[in-house]
């Protein structure tokens, strides 16, 4: 892949964040988006009329909530209907793409204040309808119409990882156990109850070897961030968080196109781009939010991001390295598995949690983190975004 030519980018900061309760909501899809957007705008202390652009991440709103034009609709409802508002779609990484584009337009000097919101409304639809909608993240003609589902595709990844590396059922279940434990301290999480390994491996079969507690719940929710140039961030808030690196890559949309059924190339490529921009490596990261759309996905992600060698993610998780007090605390929010996975919102909800972590005010605070990494995955590795954030220690 050709490397971007060097262009002048200015530093960008997060000055406002917002996130709704994740779970089953009575609110409409647009009302969810408004709620998190208003929280982000108010916490940033900016005026509505200062916002120059909106990016809105959403995957299945047209299909499940029967509403398109969500970007323009959000601008209109916020009373800023004359600004550009762009909906981004990249399956479950729709939010990560929205965040990246908000960042890029400021970094490149186009705008000073940009809102990025991610939203999904899923619980009003039946499980078969949600299953069918999510399956469109894969290659329908080549693979899904063979009777495959999205959990089925990840079950195939899980079977491959177990076969190739000897990763055990218990090691994979320990991802869900850890994330449920983290969820107990997140008041916005859909699940706030501890479970054990036995609960996971005896829960209902979804698509073998994936069981119910290996999966995130179908949920409603929205999350938002407000960004501005770092040089003016402290004019608005005392504790901005800096965006140090951003990466975005595509990969094969189908399992048939993967060279290795235990690794997503898009994650590794996006991570390398973000690491290069930030000058940091995996060992420099203090707190992590990864896309645990299934328990096995967290293990694959941590390996692809360079935190562990291939095949070492399972034993590392079981030994507690990714727990809240471990070397690489992962998914302190509870992750998708416990917090919930309103797909378009997920990428920005990760940024919400990591911003709070770097500000030292998360409800599940890790030990004084200086750096953080967010990993968002779309489809069965069809695309990925990776962002690296840093605590603002400057005096500006």
């Amino acid at each position, binding site marked *: 892949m050709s490397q971007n030519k060097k262009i002048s980018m200015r530093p960008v900061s997060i000055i406002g964040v917002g996130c709704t309760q994740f779970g089953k909501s009575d609110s409409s899809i647009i009302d969810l988006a408004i709620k998190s957007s208003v929280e982000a705008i108010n916490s940033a202390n900016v005026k509505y009329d200062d916002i120059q652009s909106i990016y809105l991440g959403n995957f299945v709103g047209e299909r499940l909530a029967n509403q398109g034009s969500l970007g323009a609709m959000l601008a209109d409802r916020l009373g800023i209907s004359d600004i550009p508002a762009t909906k981004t779609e990249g399956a479950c990484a729709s939010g990560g793409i929205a965040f990246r584009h908000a960042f890029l337009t400021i970094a490149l000097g186009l705008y000073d204040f940009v809102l990025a919101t991610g939203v999904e409304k899923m619980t009003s639809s039946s499980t078969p309808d949600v299953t069918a909608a999510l399956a469109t993240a894969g290659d329908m003609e080549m693979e899904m119409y063979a*009777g495959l*589902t999205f959990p089925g595709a990840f079950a195939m990844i899980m*079977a491959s990882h177990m076969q190739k590396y000897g990763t055990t059922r218990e090691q994979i279940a320990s991802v869900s156990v850890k994330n449920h434990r983290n969820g107990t301290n997140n008041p916005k999480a859909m699940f706030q109850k501890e479970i054990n390994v036995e609960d996971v491996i005896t829960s209902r079969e979804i698509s073998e070897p994936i069981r119910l507690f290996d999966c995130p719940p179908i949920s409603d929710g929205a999350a938002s961030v407000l960004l501005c140039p770092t040089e003016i961030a402290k004019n608005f808030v005392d504790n901005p968080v800096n965006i140090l690196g951003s990466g975005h890559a595509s990969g094969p949309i189908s*399992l048939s196109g993967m060279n290795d059924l235990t690794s997503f190339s898009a994650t590794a490529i996006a991570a390398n781009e973000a690491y290069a921009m930030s000058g940091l490596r995996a060992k420099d990261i203090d707190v992590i939010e990864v896309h645990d759309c299934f328990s096995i996905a967290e293990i694959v992600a941590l390996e692809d991001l360079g935190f562990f060698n291939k095949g070492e993610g399972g034993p590392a998780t079981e030994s507690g390295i990714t727990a809240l007090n471990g070397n690489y605390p992962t998914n302190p929010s509870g992750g998708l598995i416990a917090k919930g996975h309103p797909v378009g919102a997920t990428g920005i909800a990760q940024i919400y949690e990591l911003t709070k972590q770097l500000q030292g005010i998360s409800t599940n605070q890790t030990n004084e983190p200086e750096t953080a990494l967010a990993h968002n995955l779309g489809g069965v590795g069809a695309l990925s975004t990776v962002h690296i954030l840093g605590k603002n220690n400057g005096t500006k």
Partner: protein
Amino acid sequence: MEPNNIQAYQCNTCKQLFLPPKTICSACRNTETTKVTLSGHGKIMTSTVVHIPPNYSKKAPPYTVILVKLDEGIPVMGQLNDSSAQALIGTAVSLKEINEDGIYLFDVD
């Protein structure tokens, strides 16, 4: 199209095989292809037993979906004809038929 053979497409220039027909060869970007018939024999790369089916599947669960690497080197997604058969990685399988929904049904050899 013959009902019981997997039809693939081969790039006329670089001989890459692919399914389904593509309007461009993603390896060499040539747009001329030739239809070829594959043996239908291969090995299971990975599998899953689906218990919660999507609304586009007519098959009663549980059923087994398999990713098969055909002897010609390309992977295809299909199902085991006999849901109760073991679908271990590396097991040799052969195409039994292509059903009315276009799904490749395989038998364990």
